[in-house]
């Protein structure tokens, strides 16, 4: 993970000072809400149903144990003892007081955490693969470039008042765990035939009211040209993105209205004029950033340690291991996913106590490093396989060993109407009920990999469009109804789901999901044909029939 130096820390502290002054001027009346709102958004502060919500940045989903401890401290001191990990690798606190925010930010700044630009019409957290740096087959660590982009986009004087929010994601693996195709700019790191690092750049992906899968604007941009090319895209967007209608202000609309060829031509014209300017990245600068990323000194460890062999006798341990443990690029090590989706629990939440305990665990078993994934789970990226049995026991003690990763009860959900002022319907109770219906691990394993995504409104923060099963809350005559889609995917084969039929009531949603699952189990070609592949093969009709036969 990246080590902040004096320069980075100074910037974070200067930002905290500035916000402290802004809050003071707001609370004295010197700033009106109209003048203040965008400023607080640019520090991650939303107004929600019950209170302010504070969204803290976790750049490309990487945390140190000390940082996690400090998040626990903020949860305790300024909030109600828990936090929520989001679909963009950030963490949210739901009960924060505006007057206390500068102090909370100062406490976070001590460990190099900030909330810059986690909201507002600017560039947001540059997200990446939660397995970056340790995934087998990865081209190189995408976080180096995510950090380069993070710095470049932080307090950028030209792009702090864009038409709308702007999101980057970057992947360096064949399997895209960062969902780059549904981002405003998606970056696929790869090497050209000369072995040089560069990026396929996609633009105009995004969900919400008008979902789009991103389109390739340039198949290969050399690493040294990354920032200048990005600047060209952003300058075109800043100038020509619509500002008359917030529902048409994202870059995806501009790309759609111009067409990708014309948009690419505009960007190219701009880029040609500045590609050799100050934004050209030289190798020395890239290497400096790379040098500040910490990588563990891995031991030479056996592929099958005795501890693991012995523990294989324990069926509960095995169930967890088979579900939550993934191959590491270094022999003898593993990547462990930590499910934040306990049966009956709100997806993606962790208590302060859990965070503290997890920080200890990370120190002991993962070189002090934790990752956050967009599926709202956490990961320990550097676990020695011999430590897996002890790790499992430690996780189980704090309720973080539910063996449901990637299964039907590993649900991604936005906060919904329980918290969010934009919502039309609740999402968390739906998720909770579904985890109860599918609590049996044998059943869940029988069903196999199945991603359910739930959004409480069309803003789609739960990414329902790209869920294998997507659930969208709508309002009809004051009641909560839900539209169900199937067949969406967020990875390198990204695709939007298809509606199966009319929306259903709150009380019926879990039954409908059970019907869909039954249909799948009856129709799948083989036990290992994934739900999403069965849908691809057969289309929605057989599922629609099953669900609406008696409704």
């Amino acid at each position, binding site marked *: 993970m990246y080590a902040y130096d004096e320069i980075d820390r100074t910037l974070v502290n200067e930002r905290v000072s500035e916000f402290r002054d802004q809050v003071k001027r707001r609370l004295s009346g010197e700033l009106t809400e109209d003048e203040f709102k965008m400023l607080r958004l640019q520090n991650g502060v939303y107004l929600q*149903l019950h*209170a*302010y919500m504070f969204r803290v940045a976790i750049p490309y989903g990487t945390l140190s144990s000390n940082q996690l401890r400090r998040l626990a401290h903020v949860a305790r001191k300024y909030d109600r*003892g828990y936090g929520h990990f989001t679909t963009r690798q950030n963490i949210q606190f739901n009960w*924060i007081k505006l007057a206390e925010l500068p102090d909370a930010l100062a406490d976070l700044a001590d460990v190099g955490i900030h909330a810059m630009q986690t909201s507002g019409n600017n560039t947001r957290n540059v997200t990446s693969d939660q397995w970056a740096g340790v995934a087998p087959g990865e081209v190189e660590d995408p976080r180096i470039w995510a950090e380069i982009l993070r710095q470049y986009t932080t307090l950028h004087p030209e792009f702090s008042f864009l038409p709308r929010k702007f999101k980057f994601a970057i992947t360096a693996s064949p399997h895209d765990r960062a969902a780059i195709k549904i981002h405003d700019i998606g970056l696929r790191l790869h090497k050209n035939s000369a072995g040089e690092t560069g990026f396929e750049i996609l633009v105009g992906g995004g969900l919400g009211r008008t979902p789009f899968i991103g389109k390739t604007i340039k198949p290969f941009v050399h690493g040294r040209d990354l920032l200048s090319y990005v600047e060209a895209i952003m300058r075109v967007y800043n100038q020509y993105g619509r500002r008359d209608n917030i529902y048409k202000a994202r870059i995806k609309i501009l790309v759609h209205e111009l067409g990708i060829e014309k948009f690419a031509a505009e960007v190219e014209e701009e880029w040609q004029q500045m590609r050799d300017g100050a934004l050209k990245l030289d190798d020395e600068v890239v290497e400096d950033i790379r040098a500040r990323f910490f990588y563990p000194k891995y031991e030479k460890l056996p592929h099958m340690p005795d501890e693991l062999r012995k523990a294989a006798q324990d069926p509960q341990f095995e169930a967890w291991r088979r579900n939550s443990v993934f191959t590491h690029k270094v022999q003898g090590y593993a990547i462990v996913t930590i499910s934040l989706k306990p049966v009956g629990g709100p997806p993606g939440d962790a208590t302060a106590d*859990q965070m503290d305990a997890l920080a200890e665990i990370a120190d002991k078993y993962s070189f002090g490093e934790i990752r956050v994934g967009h599926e709202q789970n956490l990961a320990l990226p550097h676990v020695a396989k011999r430590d897996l049995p002890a790790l499992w026991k430690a996780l189980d003690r704090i309720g973080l060993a539910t063996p449901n990763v990637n299964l039907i009860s590993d649900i991604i959900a936005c906060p919904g*109407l329980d918290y969010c002022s934009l*919502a039309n319907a609740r999402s968390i109770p739906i998720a909770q009920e579904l985890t109860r219906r599918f609590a049996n691990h044998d059943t869940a394993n029988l069903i196999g990999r199945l991603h359910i995504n739930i959004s409480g409104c069309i803003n789609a923060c739960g990414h329902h469009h790209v869920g294998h099963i997507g659930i969208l809350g709508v309002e009809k005559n*004051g009641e*909560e109804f839900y539209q169900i889609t199937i067949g969406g995917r967020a990875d390198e084969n990204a695709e939007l789901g298809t509606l199966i039929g009319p929306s259903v009531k709150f009380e019926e949603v879990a039954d409908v999901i059970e019907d869909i699952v039954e249909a799948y189990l009856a129709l799948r070609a083989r036990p290992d044909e994934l739900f999403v592949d069965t849908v691809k093969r057969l289309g929605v009709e057989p599922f629609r029939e099953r669900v609406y036969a008696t409704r």
Partner: protein
Amino acid sequence: MTSPLEQKKIKIAGPSIVTANRTWDGTVIYRTARQGWSNELADAAIVRTSDDARALLAESVADDLGAVGAYIAPVEIAEGGRIEPGNLREQIRRSGVTIGLPVQA
């Protein structure tokens, strides 16, 4: 529960109140009949015409220092004149989340 943030024309369908969040700490507040704010729904001023609603909202919005995000919300008047939230959103704002909060281990 279509987000009231999307309210464009102000037209009320029944008895309504104005609600907002307190600026310094974000707690839920209700506009009273005495140009003030209260944490209690029972203290909320009730309006029954669109004109009155508009006026109450305008006066609420003018208190930029004390409150943020003021909007008009429906209520139901129960037996004995008790004010009840008029939709799920306002119920949640008054009573809190409908799910258990995560419990400290």
